[in-house]
C-alpha cells in the first residue's frame, strides 16, 4: 500500500516534470498557469501583430500568458549579455549573426526534431526553406519571421513629372537625373547612412549589376574589390557621390531624417526595404512608386534586371535553452511565428512574409505598387545578403565603415585598397 502510494507520487512528479510523457501530450495536459517572456518588436503595427499572435497562442494554450519585451536595437549587446548570464527571454527574435553565436554557446534550443515532428516546413514557401532555416552548423534554431524582403529603389513620380525629368532606368540616365535634380535644388536620393544595412544595400544596388554575388562574394573572399566588375561598380558609386546623389550629412542621417526628406518632397528617390511599401502608400499616395530595376547598369543590361539587394537571413524566433518549459515554449514560438506572419501577409500586406500564400486572402484591395511588387517577386534573385547579416562579421563591420567613408568623399582607389586589405585579413 505504502509502496504503491509512493510510486504514484513518484509518477505524478515525473509527469509534472515531463519525464514520462511525450512532448505533445504533456503540452496539452498541463494546465498550470505559465508565463513566457517574448522579446520581439512591440510597437505600432508590430504590437498589434504580436497581440494577434498571442491570441492565437491562447486558443491552444489558455493557460499560457505571453509577456512582451520590446526588441532592443543595440547590435545584440543586451541579448548576448543576457545569454552570458542565462537570463534570456523564453522566446526572442534573432538575426542570423546572433543565432550563430547563441547556437555555438548552447544558449538556444536546436529545433530540428520539432520541425521533423510537426512538419513546420509545410507552412513555409520553398525559398524560405532553402535559404532561411539552417544556420552555419547545419541545424535549425528559429521559426522564420519577416521573410526575404528585397530592397527597393523608391521614387516620387510627381517630382519627375513636374520637372520634366526622365525617371532613370540605367546608370547614364541616373547621372543625368542627378544633375537635373540638383539644378532645381532637389536631393536626388535620400539615404539613412547612420545604419549599416542601407549603406550596404546601396553598394549592392551597383555591385549586383556587375557581379551576382555582391557584397556577399567579397565577404567570402571569392571576389575582390579590385576585380574589374567590382571596381567598375565602385567607381560609379564614387562618381554618383561626387555628383551629389545624397543629401548633406548622409552618414549621420537616421531613418526618420531620410524618410522625412523623401516624404516632404525634398528628395526625389529613396532606398528602403519592401516593408516600406505600405508607408510609401500612406505618405505619397498615388505619387509613390519604385523602379523595377536599379538604375545602375549599362543601358540594355537585361540579365541583371531583377538582381536585388537584401535577401535571405536565418532570422526568426528562437527559444532559450534555459526556459523552464522547453516543449511548450517551442510550440508556442511556432504557433506565434506562423500566426504573426500570416497576419502580416494578409492584413499588413507584407508580401515577402515567410508563409505559404496559396490559402491566404489579402484583406482589401492591393494598391498598384503592391501588385507591381507581387508580380515581380517570382522574378527576383538574391545573390547577396543584408550587410549586417553576413557570416563574416569582421568584414561586415569593416565594409560598413569603408562604405560610409566612400559616401562622404573617400576616393574609389582608397576604398578598393582598404576593402581588399580587409578581405585578406578576415578570410584567412
Amino acid at each position, binding site marked *: 500500500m505504502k509502496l504503491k502510494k509512493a510510486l504514484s507520487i513518484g509518477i505524478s512528479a515525473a509527469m509534472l516534470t515531463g519525464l514520462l510523457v511525450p512532448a505533445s501530450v504533456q503540452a496539452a495536459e498541463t494546465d498550470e498557469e505559465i508565463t513566457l517572456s517574448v522579446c520581439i518588436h512591440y510597437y505600432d503595427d508590430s504590437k498589434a501583430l504580436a497581440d494577434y499572435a498571442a491570441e492565437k497562442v491562447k486558443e491552444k494554450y489558455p493557460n499560457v500568458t505571453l509577456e512582451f519585451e520590446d526588441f532592443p536595437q543595440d547590435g545584440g*549587446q543586451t541579448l548576448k549579455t543576457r545569454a552570458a548570464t542565462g537570463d534570456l527571454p523564453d522566446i526572442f527574435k534573432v538575426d542570423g549573426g546572433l543565432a550563430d553565436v547563441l547556437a555555438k*554557446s548552447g544558449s538556444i534550443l536546436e529545433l530540428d526534431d520539432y520541425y521533423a515532428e510537426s512538419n513546420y516546413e509545410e507552412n513555409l514557401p520553398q525559398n524560405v526553406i532553402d535559404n532561411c532555416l539552417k544556420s552555419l552548423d547545419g541545424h535549425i534554431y528559429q521559426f522564420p519571421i519577416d521573410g526575404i524582403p528585397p530592397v527597393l529603389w523608391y521614387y516620387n513620380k510627381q517630382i519627375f513629372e513636374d520637372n520634366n525629368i526622365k525617371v532613370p532606368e540605367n546608370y547614364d540616365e541616373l547621372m543625368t537625373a542627378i544633375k537635373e535634380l540638383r539644378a532645381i535644388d532637389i536631393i536626388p536620393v535620400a539615404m539613412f547612412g547612420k545604419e549599416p544595412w542601407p549603406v550596404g544595400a546601396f553598394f549592392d544596388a551597383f555591385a549586383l549589376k556587375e557581379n551576382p554575388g555582391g557584397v556577399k562574394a567579397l565577404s567570402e573572399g571569392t571576389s575582390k574589390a579590385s576585380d574589374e566588375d567590382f571596381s567598375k561598380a565602385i567607381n560609379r558609386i564614387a562618381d554618383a557621390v561626387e555628383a551629389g546623389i545624397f543629401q548633406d550629412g548622409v552618414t549621420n542621417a537616421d531613418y526618420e531624417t531620410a524618410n522625412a526628406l523623401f516624404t516632404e518632397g525634398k528628395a526625389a528617390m529613396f532606398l528602403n526595404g519592401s516593408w516600406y511599401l505600405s508607408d510609401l502608400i500612406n505618405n505619397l499616395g498615388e505619387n509613390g512608386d519604385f523602379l523595377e530595376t536599379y538604375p545602375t547598369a549599362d543601358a540594355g543590361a537585361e540579365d541583371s534586371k531583377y538582381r536585388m539587394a537584401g535577401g535571405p537571413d536565418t532570422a526568426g524566433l528562437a527559444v532559450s535553452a534555459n526556459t523552464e518549459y522547453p516543449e511548450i515554449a517551442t510550440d508556442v514560438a511556432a504557433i506565434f511565428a506562423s500566426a504573426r506572419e500570416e497576419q502580416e501577409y494578409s492584413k499588413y500586406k507584407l508580401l515577402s512574409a515567410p508563409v505559404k500564400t496559396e490559402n491566404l486572402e489579402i484583406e482589401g484591395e492591393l494598391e498598384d505598387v503592391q501588385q507591381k511588387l507581387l508580380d515581380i517577386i517570382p522574378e527576383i534573385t538574391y545573390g547577396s545578403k543584408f550587410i549586417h547579416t553576413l557570416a563574416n562579421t569582421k568584414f561586415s563591420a569593416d565594409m560598413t*565603415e569603408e562604405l560610409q567613408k566612400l559616401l*562622404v568623399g573617400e576616393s574609389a582607389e582608397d576604398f578598393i585598397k582598404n576593402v581588399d586589405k580587409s578581405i585578406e585579413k578576415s578570410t584567412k
Partner: protein
Amino acid sequence: MQKMLGNKRVIAFFTLPALLVFTIVVFYPILQTLQKSFYDWDGLSEAIFTGLDNYKELFTDDLFYESLKNGLIFAGILVVFQMGLATLLMFALMNKNIPFKRFFRSSFFIPVVLSVTVACQLWSSIYDPEFGLFNNLFQALGLNYRQNWLSDMNWAIVAVAFVNVWQFTGYQFTIMYSGAKSIPEDYLEAARIDGATNMQINLKILLPMLKDTYRMCFVFAITGGFNAFAHMNLLTKGGPGTSTYTLTYMTFRSAFNVGEYGYGCASAVILVAQCLLATFIINKIFSSKEKY
C-alpha cells in the same frame, strides 16, 4: 595626535568596506578582462588561449591607432577648451564687481543636469546640415560656410568633442569654483590691499592654491577624453566610417558587433593602462611642484 590619526583599527574600519565593494564589483571584472585578453573568445562559448596574439594583432590594426589618436584629440580639446573656459568663468565669478553670481552659477550648470541623450538630440538639430542652426545662421549672415559638421571625416571628432565641452564645462566650473570659494577670504583680501590687480590675484594666489582641485580636473578631462563613448554613440555611431572611434568605441565594436570579445578585452586593457599612466603622470607633475 599622531597616535589618534594612526589608529590601525579606525583606518581599517574607514577604508575596508569601500575597498571591498570596489574590489568585488570593479576590480575583479577588470582582472577578468585582463585574463580574457589572452583568449580568442566570442563572449559566450569556450575561450581558446592564444597568448599575446590579440595584442600583436592590435598593434598592427589601423583602427587601433585611429581610436588612440581620437582619444588624444578628445582629451586635448577637453583640457584646452573645457578647463580653459571653466577657469575663465571661475575668475570672472571670483571678481567682486560682478553681479548676479547666483544666476550665472546656476545657468552654467544646466547642461550638466540634462541627460546626454537630451544634449545629443539638441546638438543633432544644431549640426544638421539642411535645417540646423549653424548652417542657417551662416546663411543668414551671408557667409558661405556651410559644413557637414558630423559627416566630415576630419572634423567630426572635433564637433563631437565640442558637445562634451559645452555640456560639462559647468561641471568643471563648479568644482573649481567651490574650491576657490573655500580659500579663506583673508588671503585674497591681503593681496588686494597690497594693490594686486584681479588678474594678478587669479594667477599668483588663486591658481597655486587650487593645485589639488586642478589635479582632479585634469584627471577628469584627460581620462574622460580617452574613454569618451556616449556622445559619439548617440551623435555619429563612430562614423563617418571610423572617424569618431575611440578605444571604448572600438572595444564595444569588437565585443558586440564583430563577436571578438577577447580582442575587445585587449583594447580595453590598453585603454585602462593608458588612463592609469595619464593619472600617474598628472599626480607626479602636481606633486613634484609641491617641493618649491
